[in-house]
Each structure stands twice: as structure tokens, then as C-alpha cells.
């Protein structure tokens, strides 16, 4: 059977644009059909914004690559209409364990409270995620959504102008030009768009190599994230074991700096390492092998006029914490509603500067966390190793030392504290987790879950207070009234919330005040500075 990533899912087809007498202009062009580009395209399609997606390939990514999809991106996929398939196919997990040598030193549960539709994490190979996004995209196309996906279409030149972008596209049948009012570059860490525009991408290189091996085996390890510091089977280095669907396990082994990558990737060198870890009696087969190094870095700005960067093209982190693909999907979630309002003339293009501010803030948080984890896993100085080993040593006996053990602080959405779109908190005694800037925490409500009722549009959420619909001109504003009880009371208290289309909280008040709502909505859409 051909593997999914060996199938051309969106083969090159000649498009009338290639024979047009002059370059055709599109409202939005997305470069790259990875998880971030596809998320952006589906969101645009749902908003009715015509979008062309270009990719130099015509299939999903080879190898499992990103495998940990966090709760927040799953909630975003729910909003886009494809979260359920992913959760059904994925391996659900909430618990992680860290070992020093053979002893467990730390255990965490990422979702200790109930009343959430989605788990803390699922493990699902990136190619499955991409395929499910493609399925959703095809479904929306069939319903008439204006999304176009062009395979084997490589952007080979780019020109920027005050009100549009010009690009040259190479295809198997030669090149043609297109214009876009807005271009979203989701073309990965090596972003050709970024390179062609000569933009910066600076940060820290970590001098270490890691071997990723995906193996198929029948094994009875629990569905948890297991991390080892200095295990007997990989002395002085780290190791990670994680379950994926289809009987595939992800094994990640630290190798050190002075190695020959090509030599390490050879099966005759990989197999003994895996055997040492799993034991002689376990039968396994190698599915995919890769050796990687990593960097923590970001672009200084994610918006450059009419070109906007999202995902790995804008920021890169170490894999400990699953903060790569997960943050890219949140980039798209943050960007698309803003772009829609700007294209409709309902918001000034300065609203897009808030994408830059908010997602740079998110990237900084991810880089900080992933850098700290990496410094703990691979100490960069003798003293740093001494403290690390001391923390591990103490954590065997003493609870206080366990929170120091850092095998990755796993992806959670950031709260946009200080964002210009927030209205100062008028409910300061309300729960801190729902202050303006926060992502809405889910809660079980009569007939389902809160987050299934929110998103895509601005919403007034009245919890235990009276409210009436507010007519807000160009900007649709929904009203949902719920009783203040159970998890909702615990997480939101009693008050009126203004929720953005990306399910982040823009403002909250103790009660209904139409003038205040209009002002907050104006601020949240960049219409009032």
C-alpha cells in the first residue's frame, strides 16, 4: 500500500491565470500548504475570502515530524470543523513522567480539571493532520468556499508594493506572474519568501544533535510522555518515548555535538540504539529516521507591509514543549479574522500590526520556555550541569525540587496581556484566567461545551447578567446568555465578556453597558487606538 505521503493529493493542473494577458490579482495568496498554511486557507474560506494556496510540492509531508497537537490548536481545528477526526485518530494523553537514570523523578498532568471538550494533547503524525486539513478544505470547496490549492507551484520571485505584492510562480509548464493584495508566508523554517525579501532570522543555535526514530512495534508502554535524563541505554544523554497512532512510537535520543549525521542515520547504527532502549525481546521495524539540530530564533517583525509571516517562517523553537506547529496554528487563528475585517473595510490595516505584536509576544514566550528546557536537558556549562544534576538528585526524595525538573514545558496558549486590543479589566475581582487577553477556557454547559458556541465572529457572552443585542454596524456581534453555574462560574464568575473571533477575551464588565461595549469593540478592531 502506498503511504499517504507518497500520493499526489493536489497534483499540478494548468490554471487559466497562467494564460491571462496580465497578472491576475487575488485578495490573499498563502505560500505553503503545511499545517499553518492550510489552517489559514480554511479559515479564510469559512469567512468567504477568496484565497489561493501555493505549494512547491503536491502531497503531505514525509515522515511524522510534528506529532504533539495541544488542546488550544485542537479547539481551533474544532472551530474550523476538523477537530473531531483528529481526536478520534490521535492518541490522547495528559500525563508525562521524567526519569533520572531508571528512577522516576517527576510526573505532571497537563489537564487536571474536568469540563473541557479536548484533552491536553493528542499525538498524531503531521501527515495525518495535513491530510485531515486537506479533506476539510476539499469539503469546503465542494460547498462553494472560494479556496484554490495549486500544487507544484513554487514562488520564485517576489516584489512588494504599498498596496499589493507581485510574485512569479514556477510550474512544470513554465512560470507565470500573480498579484496579491496580501501574501501570507507559511513556507517553513527555511522560508524562501523570507530569504527573497532579505529579512533577518536571528537567535541561538544549540550545539547538539538528536536522533528521531519512528518505530512500529507491539508494546504495552502507557500512553504517556516518558522522558529520561541519563538513562542506562543512552548514558549522559536524554531520551524521549511517545506513542503515535497506527502502532508507531516516537523515540528521540540525544546524540551530542561531535557526530556524523549521515553515519548515525544508517539503520545498522540506529537499530542497536533502539534495541538497547527497548530490550532484546521487543520486535520493531524502523518507520522513519531523522537527525536534527535546532535553533531558537524569530524574525524581528512578522508583518512586512503586505507580506505576513506565520508559523516556522516567523519563529523557530526547540522541539521540547511542542511549541512549533502548535504556535503556528495559533498564528493563523490570530491573523485571519483581522485580515477579513481589513479586506471588508471594517478595520484599518493597522489592525494587522496587532497580529505582529500579539504573536511576537507569543513567540517570545515559546522561545523563553523552550530555551530553558533545552538548557536543562543539555546543560551548556559545567556549573549548569552541576545544578541540573543536583535538582535531579534532590527530586528523588524531595517534592520541592521536582518543579525544577524541566523536560519541556508543554505548549499552552499565551494570554495577550498588554495588547492594544484589550480594554482595561472592569472586573478585576473576576478569575485571573479570564482577564482581557486570555484565551477562553472551555467549560461544560447545557447541551455541550462553551467553545463550540464561540468563535469566527465577535460574541458578547453574558454569564449570570442581563444583556440585550448590540447593533455594531460593519461588525457582526453575537449574543449568548448563560447561567452562572458550575465550571462556568468557577472560570468566568459573573459578568459580561466580549470575545474575539479567535476566542480570546477582549473585555469584561460586571454588567451590561452599551457604550462601553461599543468602545471595546472599536478598540478590539483597531478602529480606536
Amino acid at each position, binding site marked *: 500500500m502506498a503511504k499517504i505521503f507518497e500520493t499526489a493529493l493536489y497534483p499540478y493542473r494548468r490554471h487559466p491565470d497562467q494564460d491571462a494577458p496580465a497578472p491576475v490579482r487575488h485578495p490573499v495568496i498563502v505560500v505553503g500548504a503545511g499545517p499553518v498554511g492550510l489552517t489559514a486557507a480554511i479559515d479564510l474560506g469559512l469567512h468567504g475570502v477568496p484565497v489561493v494556496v501555493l505549494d512547491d510540492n503536491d502531497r503531505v509531508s514525509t515522515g511524522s515530524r510534528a506529532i504533539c497537537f495541544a488542546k488550544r490548536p485542537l479547539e481551533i481545528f474544532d472551530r474550523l470543523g476538523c477537530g473531531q477526526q483528529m481526536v478520534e485518530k490521535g492518541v490522547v494523553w495528559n500525563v508525562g513522567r521524567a526519569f533520572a537514570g531508571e528512577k522516576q523523578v517527576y510526573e505532571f498532568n497537563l489537564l487536571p480539571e474536568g469540563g473541557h471538550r479536548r484533552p491536553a494533547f493528542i499525538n498524531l503524525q503531521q501527515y495525518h493532520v495535513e491530510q485531515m486539513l486537506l479533506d476539510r478544505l476539499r469539503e469546503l470547496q465542494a460547498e462553494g468556499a472560494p479556496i484554490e490549492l495549486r500544487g507544484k507551484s513554487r514562488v520564485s520571485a517576489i516584489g512588494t508594493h504599498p498596496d499589493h505584492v507581485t510574485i512569479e510562480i514556477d510550474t512544470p509548464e513554465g512560470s507565470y506572474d500573480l498579484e496579491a493584495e496580501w501574501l501570507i508566508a507559511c513556507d517553513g523554517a527555511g522560508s524562501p519568501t523570507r530569504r527573497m525579501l532579505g529579512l533577518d532570522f536571528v537567535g541561538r543555535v544549540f550545539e547538539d544533535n538528536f536522533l528521531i526514530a519512528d518505530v512500529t512495534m507491539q508494546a504495552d508502554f502507557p500512553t504517556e510522555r516518558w522522558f529520561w535524563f541519563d538513562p542506562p541505554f543512552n548514558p549522559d544523554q536524554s531520551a524521549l518515548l511517545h506513542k503515535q497512532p497506527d502502532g508507531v512510537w516516537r523515540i528521540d535520543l540525544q546524540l551530542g555535538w561531535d557526530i556524523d549525521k549521515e553515519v548515525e542515520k544508517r539503520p545498522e547504527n540506529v537499530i542497536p540504539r533502539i534495541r538497547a532502549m527497548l530490550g532484546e525481546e521487543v520486535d520493531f521495524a524502523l518507520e522513519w529516521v531523522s537527525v536534527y539540530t535546532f535553533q531558537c530564533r524569530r524574525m524581528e517583525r512578522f508583518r512586512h507591509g503586505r507580506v505576513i509571516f506565520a508559523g516556522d517562517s516567523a519563529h523557530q523553537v526547540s522541539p521540547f514543549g511542542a511549541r512549533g506547529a502548535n504556535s503556528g496554528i495559533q498564528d493563523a487563528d490570530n491573523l485571519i479574522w483581522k485580515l477579513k475585517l481589513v479586506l471588508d473595510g471594517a478595520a484599518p490595516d493597522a489592525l494587522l500590526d496587532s497580529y505582529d505584536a500579539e504573536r511576537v509576544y507569543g513567540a517570545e514566550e515559546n522561545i523563553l520556555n523552550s530555551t*530553558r528546557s533545552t538548557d536543562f536537558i543539555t546543560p551548556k556549562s*559545567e*556549573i549548569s550541569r552541576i545544578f541540573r544534576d543536583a*535538582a535531579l538528585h*534532590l527530586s528523588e526524595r524531595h*517534592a*520541592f525540587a521536582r*518543579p*525544577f525538573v524541566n523536560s519541556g*514545558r508543554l505548549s499552552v496558549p499565551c494570554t495577550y496581556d498588554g495588547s492594544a486590543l484589550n480594554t482595561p479589566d472592569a472586573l478585576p475581582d473576576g478569575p485571573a484566567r479570564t482577564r482581557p487577553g486570555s484565551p477562553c477556557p472551555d467549560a461544560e454547559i447545557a447541551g455541550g461545551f462553551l467553545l463550540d458556541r464561540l468563535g469566527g465572529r465577535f460574541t458578547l457572552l453574558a454569564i449570570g447578567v442581563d444583556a440585550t443585542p448590540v447593533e455594531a454596524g460593519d461588525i457582526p456581534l453575537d449574543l449568548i446568555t448563560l447561567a452562572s453555574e458550575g465550571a462556568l462560574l468557577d472560570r468566568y464568575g459573573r459578568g459580561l465578556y466580549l470575545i474575539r473571533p479567535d476566542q480570546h477575551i477582549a473585555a469584561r464588565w460586571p454588567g451590561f453597558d452599551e457604550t462601553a461595549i461599543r468602545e471595546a469593540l472599536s478598540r478590539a478592531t483597531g478602529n480606536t487606538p
Partner: protein
Amino acid sequence: MSLNLQPNLKSPDDAYAALLEAHEGLSKEESDALNARLILVLMNHVGEMEVIRKALEAARE
């Protein structure tokens, strides 16, 4: 007063990062000296001989 061996820091990651940052760029000898000074400062802050004795025991285990 007894020695608290339960988690007691609001943000352990921030505290740990601050500790490593203080050592950044120091030689091993300088780091050892910094650690010695730090221990003396913290011992004084604790102030209770009984607690210090228990901390010494925990560290020697």
C-alpha cells in the same frame, strides 16, 4: 520551625533561570565562590540553626 521541603516558589523556572544567569560567563572557580557566598547569604536569611542543620542533612543524602 521545620525545614520546608515542599514546593515553595511561585515560579520555579524563573528562579532556576535567575540562578543560572548569575553564573553566566564565570569560571568554575568563580562559580564555586559565588555559590559559597550565596549559601552564606541564604543561611543568614533562614536564621534558625535547627533548619540549617536539617538542610545540610537533606543536601548530604
